[in-house]
């Protein structure tokens, strides 16, 4: 079964790494939305573009949200390669998110 996660349902201006940085931080997004979806469904599609107009993601957010799946939640990279789809019209955002999944420690 497939689950579509729209980040816009979480926040239109996601920001920061941990709850110290704010409620709509990457750690909350990962723990409350991404991890349960990945545990429950065979395929998870994450839509990143439904955010405020002119909003730009920060690298900390992408690292914590996606790299954190491997670093903190102990998902296997090859499992994520199969299960997770990151959907955005911005190739750089997509490639950077996958960089963090494949080598989270490199950017710590």
């Amino acid at each position, binding site marked *: 079964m497939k689950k579509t996660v729209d980040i816009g349902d979480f926040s239109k201006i996601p*920001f*920061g*790494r*941990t709850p*110290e*940085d704010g409620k709509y931080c990457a750690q909350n997004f990962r723990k409350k939305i991404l991890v349960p979806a990945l545990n429950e469904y065979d395929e998870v599609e994450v839509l990143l573009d439904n955010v405020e107009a*002119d*909003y*730009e*993601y*920060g*690298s*900390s957010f992408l*690292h914590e949200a996606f790299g954190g799946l491997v670093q903190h939640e102990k998902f296997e990279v090859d499992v994520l390669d199969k299960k997770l789809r990151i959907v955005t019209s*911005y*190739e*750089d955002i997509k*490639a*950077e998110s996958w*960089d963090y999944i494949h080598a989270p420690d490199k*950017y*710590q």
Partner: protein
Amino acid sequence: MTLQIILAAVSIGVVFAGWRVIYKNAQKIATRNESFSLIRDANETLDRLRLEGVALWRMTDKDEINFYTKITTNDIRILRNTITKLNGRNVHIDSKVLTPLRRALTLNNTKVVDQSIEGMSENISAVYKATERFKAVILSSFEKNHPPLP
């Protein structure tokens, strides 16, 4: 009479061909100038980002992080829009050139007050490298499409 008609037709042809060459050259120069104006805007944004980046990594007050993140990500968005405009003008720039810049400005910036002097220096150096690299990439893409004028 026939000779006069032929000469008139040839003259008109020469004038038309000349006009066409001048028109095409003017169009090429105008396109080049318009694209270069976008490159100049991008360079100005990059210079501003460099100053913002240095200020960000020298910050001692954690409350200012949100402010600096907002202004730096706004400028990254401006660069993204410029890349889109340049791509529309056949100056092809891969948006992945934004990644090192975004990393240099926003990766772990919430930990700025806890960084060591060495960390600060590395972070500032990364901002310089990323902005210089960006400038080199856009200029080289521009020159591929619009070689320097003789």
